[in-house]
């Protein structure tokens, strides 16, 4: 068994959060692709409470929840830190991580629904983006300042997955003229070293998510 295993699924933004953190810190790991339609006994053993990916397994011990995994990685491998060391700055980062964890899923509600429910989710997503652009990003290059930090990784869904959702449902949410700074950040983030070489293929994601939405709407 490898010292470190990442259990994930290829189109999941949550999986990628952990993958990037591992690569940014130069931590060797083995990747295990899970099949969420047929969850492995191992996954159920590692994450009995939520039965979800990603799960990081270090020396046989599992850690669950992507942002909690990132805090663990930052504490255990301090090189290339994702969190600032100052307690106040750290509190600000954690505030925004919680914000994106609580509000970010509205984009996925847009993906999963239609009609009034979808309209409300679009409104929620727009509000979320506005708040992030004004209060979290401001004029900075990255949320983390000069380099990628925990909030950048937490917001990565906006950089790469939101476009796919928009195309699948046919609704534009992150419009460049409405969110110029956030839009610029999506480009900067995706061109950053390590990130640019580790992004799931958008064409493949389009196929995957189109099929997933069709299934969802058919069973609704």
């Amino acid at each position, binding site marked *: 068994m490898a010292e470190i295993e990442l259990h994930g699924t290829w189109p999941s933004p949550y999986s990628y959060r952990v993958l990037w953190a591992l690569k940014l810190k130069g931590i060797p790991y083995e990747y295990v692709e899970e099949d969420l339609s047929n969850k492995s006994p191992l996954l159920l053993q590692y994450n009995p*409470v939520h039965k979800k990916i990603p799960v990081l397994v*270090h020396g046989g*011990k599992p*850690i*669950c*929840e992507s942002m*909690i*995994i990132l*805090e*663990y990685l930052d*504490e*255990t491998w301090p090189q290339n830190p994702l969190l600032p060391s100052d*307690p*106040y700055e*750290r*509190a600000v980062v*954690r*505030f925004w991580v*919680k*914000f994106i964890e609580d509000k970010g899923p509205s984009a996925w509600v847009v993906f999963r629904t239609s009609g009034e429910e979808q309209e409300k989710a679009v409104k929620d997503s727009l509000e979320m983006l506005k*708040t992030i652009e004004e*209060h979290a990003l401001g004029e900075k290059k990255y949320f983390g300042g000069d380099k990628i930090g925990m909030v950048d990784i937490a917001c990565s869904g906006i950089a790469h997955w939101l476009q796919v959702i928009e195309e699948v449902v046919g609704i534009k949410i992150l419009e460049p003229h409405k969110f110029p700074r956030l839009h610029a950040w999506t480009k900067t983030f995706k061109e950053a070293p390590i990130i640019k070489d580790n992004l799931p293929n958008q064409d493949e994601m389009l196929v995957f998510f189109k099929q997933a939405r069709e299934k969802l709407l058919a069973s609704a």
Partner: protein
Amino acid sequence: MAEADQLLLLDLLPSPFAARVRIALAEKGLNYESREEDLSNKSPLLLKMNPVHKQIPVLIHNGRPICESMVIVQYIDQVWNHKSPLLPSDPYRRAHARFWADYIDKKIYPIGRMLWASKGEVKEASKKDLIECFKILEGELGDKPYFGGESFGYIDLALIPFYSFFYTFETLGNFSVVVEFPKLMDWAQRCLLKESVSKSLCDQRNVYEAVLEIRKKLGAE
């Protein structure tokens, strides 16, 4: 650490989230000013210090605001690390503590609120969900005195404020915590022996009265 540390807590007695911060401050033996907010008439200070959510609790330390209860607790733990550590020092155990605090945040308040704010089928479904969560929590506690082991810590602090809601859950949900979850009740009583906890929690009856007011407004009564 500055000589004259100014700590102001924008507070609300029945809020379990504010209670978490009160407990953390008490555990560290810190002096602070508590200012009770009226959520139907939010103070300019609250709106300025938490412009994103406009919610309590907010801890203002030497003029700078920190928001979100468990973010505040981690801040307090890091700055005043000279006594009563709330998070363990080992990274794996810290991840474990954060996982369960996150579970409590995602489940207990929202499901509990659904139970006490609604009626009929929705209330029944929420009751079932809440009981399931308590089962899982009791399972995690096992035979340990506290969730973190031998001493009161991060997970205990995250959960114990919901003790103030037990009477509300039991009355509106028609079940008994002590009968269905004796270990959880034992744990709660053990936590209440600590002054930092007993002095920080809102009385169960007061929470029930506050909830009944909200139910009336929502038309659930």
